[in-house]
């Protein structure tokens, strides 16, 4: 029987919600009460909207408290631990549990369950048994075949079959080979890689060991963005532990296989996640994509055969080895096997990480698991941006699209790293395209003319459209540029940069047209195209809006109708948010 313990969710999201304070408060309470109780930390379980999460594990069972703040610590200890009474109003709800139940957790199998700083806990869950199995009983080629059979495809964006990639690197001849883990995670909406690194770092190490064994590499690098200090810290601890346990270094598991592992901190440029740029960056050069061929499998890091895989891809590997290719392939669709982690964000009820079998429909992911549109039900679902800045917007009419590589590609979006930004009818599609394009055009490495200058020109066009200065012919110009950028850019960044524009043009062309022709933003989101008005009947003259207005645009005596001066208003929208009676509304400006 396990010892009684308390586990605090200390992923980045948990820490951001004040998890450290909660942890300290609980620790102090335990000491001052003299309780025989262990306190541990764990990574993100995916319910980021509920952080800080605290698990209390007693012989009687496990209870999870949500949205814990330091002030709640004493009561949890007193009532639950000492007196044995669960504080039911603080625990996670049935709904929360349901959304966990509908998931299939392979990548996130240990996240939020084990302490990421303990190799023992990882090993209790079957950790490092996969590498042992591989070394003791499988040839590198058998490993390659197993992964190929599992149907696993790269989760870094392109979805290239991992086993096939390993096969190339395995066959490539070189006196030295490298295995790189791509933990650059540049897509601003995605954070599954971070969660795995923070919550289950050993699974990545083990995945890399298996990969290294399969392709014949003895040296690995984890390229992780410097903005992930916690991930780096936990990786370092994990590497040290793995080394002491003989999983890193010479003669692993008593064989003659050896593997060295280093962490490289990336400078945080999106384009450094592109594999050739990443290699250049590790070599100490500017992260700039280079021409392929030669592909990294032939000539990669320092000119040697190199394999690069994404964090999420690698987290699957030990599971596949232990549960068999068939076990993995039993999830998913014909061409997209296994599970995929999505980062739900935007106007969604329950934001966070979810891992679902491939083939589940967007509707199920967003509504059944994510709980639908955030708020009181006043707004409705409009579209979901899948795949981050390289992806595209999928409209509500396509909500039944299954999430698998091919179906998603057909919509014009991409699976990408699995960022899902949910938008409701207050989101302007032209503005969203502008937002993503602004990101990519800033991140272009500057090499390709169309990617560098073309995305800039597209952005300028979008900027003038959202400002109400769109011109006749702008849509055609955008389409032209988009096609050219796609066709003549060197790397994925440029090739996919027009996707948000192309998909919004495909599904929401009328929004573009009303911006250009009528100077009207249907979602009433574009500042230059709206103005604010007070609905006389609703205003009770509470004066809250006067207090927040930064420029004195609202006047009126207490308890009397207030008046809004559109000439003074800078359209910041603060008054709308403040007014409890919804008396202030956005209206078309022109």
């Amino acid at each position, binding site marked *: 029987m396990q010892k009684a313990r308390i586990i605090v969710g200390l992923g980045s999201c948990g820490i951001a919600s004040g998890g450290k304070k909660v942890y300290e408060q609980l620790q102090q309470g335990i000491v001052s009460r003299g309780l025989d109780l262990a306190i541990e930390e764990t990574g993100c379980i995916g319910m980021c909207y509920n952080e800080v999460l605290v698990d209390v594990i007693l012989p009687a069972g496990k209870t999870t408290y949500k949205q814990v703040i330091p002030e709640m610590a004493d009561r949890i200890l007193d009532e639950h631990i000492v007196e044995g009474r669960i504080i039911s109003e603080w625990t996670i709800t049935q709904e929360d549990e349901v959304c966990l139940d509908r998931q299939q957790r392979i990548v996130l199998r240990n996240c939020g369950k084990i302490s990421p700083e303990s190799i023992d806990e990882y090993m209790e869950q079957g950790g490092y048994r996969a590498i042992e199995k591989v070394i003791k009983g499988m040839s590198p080629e058998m490993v390659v075949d197993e992964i190929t059979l599992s149907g696993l495809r790269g989760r870094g964006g392109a979805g290239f079959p991992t086993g096939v990639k390993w096969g190339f690197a395995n066959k490539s001849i070189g006196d030295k080979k490298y295995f790189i883990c791509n933990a650059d995670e540049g897509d601003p909406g995605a954070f599954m890689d971070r969660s795995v690194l923070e919550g289950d770092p050993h699974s990545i190490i083990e995945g890399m060991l298996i990969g290294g064994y399969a392709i014949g590499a003895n040296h690995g690098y984890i390229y992780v963005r410097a903005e992930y200090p916690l991930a780096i810290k936990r990786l370092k601890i994990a590497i040290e532990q793995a080394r002491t346990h003989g999983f890193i270094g010479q003669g692993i598991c008593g064989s003659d296989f050896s593997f060295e592992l280093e962490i490289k901190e990336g400078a945080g440029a999106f384009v450094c996640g592109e594999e050739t740029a990443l290699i250049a960056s590790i070599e100490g050069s500017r992260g700039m994509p280079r021409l392929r061929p030669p592909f990294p499998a032939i000539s990669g890091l320092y000119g040697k055969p190199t394999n690069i895989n994404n964090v999420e891809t690698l987290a699957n590997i030990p599971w596949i080895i232990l549960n068999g290719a068939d076990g993995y392939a039993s999830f998913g669709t014909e061409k997209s096997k296994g599970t995929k982690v999505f980062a739900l964000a935007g106007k969604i009820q329950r934001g966070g990480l979810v891992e679902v079998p491939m083939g589940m429909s967007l509707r199920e992911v967003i509504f059944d698991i994510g709980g639908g549109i955030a708020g009181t039900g006043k707004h409705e679902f409009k579209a979901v941006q899948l795949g981050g800045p390289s992806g595209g917007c999928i409209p509500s009419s396509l909500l039944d699209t299954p999430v698998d590589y091919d179906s998603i590609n057909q919509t014009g979006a991409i699976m990408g790293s699995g960022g899902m930004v949910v938008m409701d009818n207050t989101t302007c599609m032209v503005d969203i395209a502008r937002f993503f394009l602004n990101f990519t055009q*800033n991140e*272009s490495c*500057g*090499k390709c003319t169309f990617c560098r*200058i073309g995305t800039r020109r597209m952005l300028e066009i979008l900027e003038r459209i959202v400002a109400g200065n769109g011109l006749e012919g702008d849509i055609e110009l955008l389409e032209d540029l988009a096609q*050219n950028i796609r066709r003549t850019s060197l790397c994925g960044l440029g090739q996919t940069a027009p996707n948000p524009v192309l998909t919004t043009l495909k599904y929401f062309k009328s929004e573009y047209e009303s911006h250009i022709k009528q100077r009207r933003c249907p979602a009433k989101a574009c500042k230059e195209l709206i103005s604010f008005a007070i609905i006389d009947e609703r205003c009770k003259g509470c004066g809250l809006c006067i207090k927040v207005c930064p420029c004195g645009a609202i006047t009126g005596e207490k308890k009397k109708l207030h008046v809004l001066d559109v000439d003074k208003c800078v359209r910041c929208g603060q008054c709308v948010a403040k007014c409890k009676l919804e008396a202030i509304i956005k209206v078309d400006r022109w």
Partner: protein
Amino acid sequence: MVTLTIDGKQITVAKGTMILEAAEMAGVKIPALCADNRLIGFGACRMCVVQLKGRRSLIPSCFNPVKDGMEVITNSPEIIESRRGQLQLILAEHPLDCPVCDKAGECQLQDLVYEYGVNDNPYRMKAIKKAVERLSPLIERDMNRCILCGKCVRICNEVQGVGEISFINRGIKAYIGTDFDRPMECEFCGQCISVCPVGALNSKMFKYKTRVWDLKNETTLCPYCSNGCTLVLGIKDNEIKRVTGNYDAGINEGNLCSKGRFGYEFVSSPERLKKPLIKKDGRFEEAGWDEALNLAAAKFNEIKAASGADSIGGLGSARLTNEELYLFQRLIRQGIGTNNIDHNGRYQGLLALRESLGACGSTNSLHEIRKTKAILLIRANLNETHPNVRIEVNLAVNRNRASLIVADNKRTLLSRQAQANLTYKPGTEVALINGIINQVIKLELADKTFVNNKTEGLDALQTSVERYTPEYVEEICGVNKQELELAARAYAKAEKSCIIVATGMGLVGNDRDIALASSNLALLTGNVGKESCGVYILPEKNNSQGALEMGAVPGFLPGYKSVKKAGLGTAEMLESGKLKAMYIVGENPILTYPSSKVKEILEKMEFLVVQDMFMTPTAELADVVLPACSFAEKDGTYTNLEQRVQSLKNLKKILPCPGESRSDLEIFIDLCTRLGCDVDMQQEIKAGSLAISSAPNFSRDTWKGKFIPVEYGKDASLASDGKLLLVSSPSHLYSGTLSAWSPYLLGIGEACIELCMNDASRLGVRDNNMVVVSSKNAELKLKARISHDVPDGVGVVHTYPTINVMCLFGKEMMPIIGSVEQVI
């Protein structure tokens, strides 16, 4: 081989050729803004897109290799449209200020915009204005015109190995710049300018000088170093306006260093001597050629009669042509009758290889270096001494993944790329090489078959290197065992390895011993007589090799034929005071010979003739000064470091000799005649070319390499009592015979002493302080430079054209103990 058609033209090319290159061979022009034969494909501009028959996709031709049966189309409407689109976008960010742009006329962007008739632009211009960088010497950067093709960054990195400039920022804000946007502090080779397809990088020397279409471009040889690069002189109004390279002309593939590219000003310098001068009552007076030459001949004859021919000596220059050198030694040997002839050069290393390998200099050719697998650089700071040999080393290391071992008395720019850095105590090269040989034997890395069949004298070598154990070597050289072993393995295990040693006036060390020790190592590992192996002893000046072959030395006649009795060499001529008269041609020993006594000696001469382009400090002392032509104004040949004989182009017609100046050859012919030895030029040239050596035939059965053991002679001293061990480092500006008259070039170097932080703080010296550096031979005022490249206890004195720092070292040119004190 692969056969394909390009726009219907069939062509067969080697496998791996890119479509762009194949098109060039087929005579089909494909526009390409970011491709260059010398650079790795980059794929930035996409101007080079083509299509394959029946397919829609646009593929960049610069990095797609040819395939059998490919049918390439280079000009479909779709392709044209895409290219126009590219150009429109570029123009949306381009100032198009062609009227004031130096590039206009040879600007690839201008030409393409014209060719594709881009006169419409759907994109609003909203270009970000960037400031023009004008603070760097020689190079001006106008990033407004930059199209980010990356060629400058790549050539600086891939070819020069310098990495001074790089892409900065991302997206539309990306530009090419230096760290922290400081002015450039590089070697100013100007290679970046030369590859820029637009007018973003400009030579300050050429700025607003002329429109390029008015230039007459002529091809000739570089007058500076022994690499023997081919230059393209852009001439207008009897003046060289600029120098460029041409990929298709010469062994340098268009690459030039700062001297070749920017060191041309001396040719049109107003200071050029125009008339013969005769000193009367201590003042020079202009004279006619007859008068001057008659006087010279008469005086030489007079002194010869009075004191014997051996009281006269001739000092030539390794910058003269082969023909001139041949004639000069005839003039001295036959016209005057003495073997007192030499040139101011360090050639003991070159001669040593004759003893051991039978080669009269470097054993292999320049371009073989790029294909080798390991390079051992011994005292070869190539960035300074032989910048274009450095390119070969870079190519070998970066493209061919060769391992590099740098053995030097300080860290050099090449150390950054080295697998092993053997920073030895100054003067201990021989002990170090013997130490490597010791390890090669101990680790059984020798090539036994080669040693058995092709060498003699192994036993003596083995006995001699026995004592150079790693411990002993560490004690002497300060290089530890691991590094030594690493070097031994890297060099000996590679499939082909070469050794490169630099020589030159400004270098300290025993050249003969270094060369012999090096050839021992090469022979032991079987690295002689094969492609991309061998020993390179790099001569200093453009015709140092020729000066030996033409017999401008006291001990050899042309073609290395021995003389009965050797005459006096440079050292004795300039230091012993035995001579009564001298004929100095193209040399300025007061500033370039390692002694501060030269002036005194020359002043005492009864009669001194100096032949030069300029009134040098040495010429000031002459009784007769004869004005000579520059390299651009004469015919002749130079022999480069790989013993390739190349011809100058006589450009006298468009670059007239100043005043009455004559080529050295003309002067020699005339003076020979006046000294009573007749010259039949046809015969002379024939004799001269016979003297040019051909490479030894290593594959011949009878060829055998000789192991000639050399010992470390304790000739390196160690500094103590707060003194430093001084060494000299040759500046890339050379001796100054030409560069001293090229002001722009002078601006990119300085005389200084480099010290490490420890020594500097111990001596209370700060960066840029003026210090007095003294040795037992001389005392000099120099600027101090604090550097991380110099080891403790060592002071590296940099040579500079207008100051004689060599005199600190004396004629031995070995590291010497000296002191450094701050000037108060």
